[in-house]
């Protein structure tokens, strides 16, 4: 069966790509950066730097499509990284540590989801509270110190010099595989389709017999797994569990999703878009670093890019034929 795409659909798909191509071509053509920017080692570096945000953005995409938000991502990553470090230091296997990291993320997500679904507290408030609770729990567990791990096979997961397949460290591949699975899940499973339905019209979904509460808990729990895995990679990057790490990272994650076409009012967003959104931010930072642009300037430019990307998205929406 052939599919016909309307111009707007094509724009939705291509929009983030065009943004990415734009950012990349700027640095590829800039005389100061073109020598290093498009090189293989630099591409690997950027990919590696993007992984943590990208993984968390998988979950955030689901949450934002369902018209929710999660502000506790950064804290949960720190908590998971501490849990991973503690598990390894107490002599358990790296595999168990990885599971523990994912499980603690899932637990946090399930708590978020349950409070949102059952007590009907808005996601913003619930996860704002969790931002504090998870960070506090991480520092408590770590006794306000960094927890050093031991050498395990987790360590090279995010090492750009680890030379995995195509030169990419295995953490990048993990994120890529999960991204593909999540995108397929969103498009081809009942759960995925129901996420869009809930985000577009929760009342109509409930009256159509959808288990809205259960689905919401599922969304936040699954997103929690991704965040937990991001915590595992965070541990791998630093070689230690750091309770103060990833502070404010949730804002990068949310930015990645909205740059990629996610709508905070729900019903819209895509995994591919979010990944590209994360890459756009990474390439900007990377290019600026090579160029030697000061930190504060990077912050300003990235801030402008976020607003500009969403503005373009709104303009596109306005041009749609009315109902």
């Amino acid at each position, binding site marked *: 069966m052939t599919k016909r795409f309307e111009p707007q659909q094509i724009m939705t798909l291509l929009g983030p790509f065009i943004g990415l191509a734009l950012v990349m071509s700027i640095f590829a053509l800039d005389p100061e950066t073109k020598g290093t920017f498009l090189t293989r080692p630099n591409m690997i570096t950027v990919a590696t730097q993007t992984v943590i945000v990208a993984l968390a953005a998988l979950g955030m995409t689901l949450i934002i499509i369902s018209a929710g938000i999660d502000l506790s991502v950064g804290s949960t990553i720190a908590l998971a990284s501490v849990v991973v470090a503690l598990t390894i230091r107490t002599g358990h296997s790296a595999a168990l540590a990885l599971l523990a990291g994912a499980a603690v993320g899932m637990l946090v997500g399930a708590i978020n989801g349950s409070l949102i679904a059952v007590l009907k507290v808005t996601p913003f408030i619930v996860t704002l509270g969790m931002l504090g609770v998870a960070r506090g729990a991480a520092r408590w567990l770590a006794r306000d110190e960094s927890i050093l791990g031991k050498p395990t096979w987790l360590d090279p997961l995010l090492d750009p010099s680890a030379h995995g397949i195509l030169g990419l460290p295995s953490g990048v591949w993990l994120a890529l595989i999960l991204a593909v699975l999540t995108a397929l899940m969103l498009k081809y499973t*009942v759960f995925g389709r129901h996420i869009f339905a809930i985000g577009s*019209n929760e009342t*109509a979904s409930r*009256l159509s*017999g959808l288990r809205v509460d259960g689905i919401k808990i599922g969304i936040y729990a699954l997103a929690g797994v991704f965040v937990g895995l991001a915590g595992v990679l965070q541990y791998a990057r630093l070689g230690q569990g750091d309770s103060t790490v990833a502070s404010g990272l949730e804002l990068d994650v949310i930015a990645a999703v909205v740059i990629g076409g996610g709508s905070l009012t729900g019903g819209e967003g895509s995994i591919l878009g979010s990944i590209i959104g994360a890459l756009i931010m990474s390439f900007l930072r990377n290019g600026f670093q090579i160029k030697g642009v000061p930190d504060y300037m990077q912050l300003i430019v990235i801030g402008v890019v976020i607003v500009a990307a969403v503005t373009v998205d709104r303009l596109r929406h306005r041009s749609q*034929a009315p109902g």
Partner: protein
Amino acid sequence: MSALLSMTDIKKGYPGVQALKGVSLNVRAGEVLALMGENGAGKSTLIKILAGAERADSGTIAIDGTPVSIPSTHSAMDLGIAIIYQEFNLLGHLNVAENILIGHEPAGLLPGSISTAKMRQEAQRILDSIGAHISVDARVSSLSVAQQQMVEIAKAISRKGRIIAMDEPSATLTEPEIERLFALIQNLRASGVGIIYISHRIAEVERIADRVTVLRDGEVVGEGAARDLGAGEIVRMMVGRPLEDNFPKVVNTPGEIVLDVRGLSRRGVLTDIGFHIRAGEVVALAGLVGSGRTEVARCIFGEIRICDKRFRPRSPRDAIRAGIGLITEDRKQQGLVLAQSVRANETLASLGRFAMAGIVNGARERSAAQEYVDTLGIRTPTIGQRVGALSGGNQQKVVLAKWLITESRLLIMDEPTRGIDVGAKVEIYHLMNKLTASGVAILMISSDLPEVLGMADRIVVMRGGAVAGELNRAEATAEAIGNLVLT
């Protein structure tokens, strides 16, 4: 006398549809022009162009004979054009006076300050002038729909509105409220305001309108003085063919009892409700708004958690599993996911049926969706079309398809034809016949008395949360129902 407003040869196209193919209309000062047409005829697009929310591809708009351009809703307001939409643009948290004067609040002593006293005074003056008895200090969210509508009209007047367009203003009002609205429209007319009145209700249009302009498929198919045209002619022009029978009811031999409600009570709302529905039957719940009709439906559908003893649905999910479908009163808010496709809406309640291990079989889903588009005659370019872009009648058919796919044995239809034009109404009635013929039972809630009399096999009349009486088709008359509703 030259026209207050004249729109000439307005054209507007969207990708795939030419919504307006050169429409012209005139409104004189102190006149009510009824703009009629089925959903999708182009009324809304025309009004959006007048409101500055959309731009015409070509054509001219003139006010008092002077050509104007309306690039934004703001410039429409400056030109004295006010639109009263079905969904009001009011700020629920603010009070009546603040809503009426929003955007041009009277200045106080200090620069940038607002004089509350002047504001209340001015708001009161406007409300008095239209004969609306609403406190200027009331919070808008605490007002009834009819009162909110009055606030919208007052707002339009405070902005020196000379041309006021009302989109189905009577749709959500009760009879006495409609009377008050009509009195208000007469006042406006007397003060020289030009009014464009959009409605599906022919009887109203005959009463209130001076002239009628009828649109069909983006073209003006007729216009004239309201009293010369008459109801039959207007309907014929709207639909494009004479409408032989408004209620094509087919009576079936009822089968076994599908739903038996006994002793259904909910404190303060429902007392000891009892009735039954057989397969192939249409039972109507009649009664005034607030008599408990909708609550009965919501109980049966598991939305309210106190119900009959043996079948006690705790959620809509339970009810759906038991073979019940609910066609809600409010299609857009509760029935459909407007931003999604026809296909996604049709299968919303039954996606699991097309899935193995949670993975949706797209081909099977699409063919089921297409099948119901064909059998119900849903007019949509493809099953991938956004439901929000369909007309009201077609949207309602999509809701119907959703429940047919779940193989509902009992369909609860709450105001099944509200906001649907005449032609599409008859199609919905035909579909109801088809459904009952195949053994589906229908519980219909309707405020439209002719519809109740025309389509129901039996009528359960409710009053004050209890059953006031039951009438069968033969003994049901408007009078008999009226007696039960009111005594």
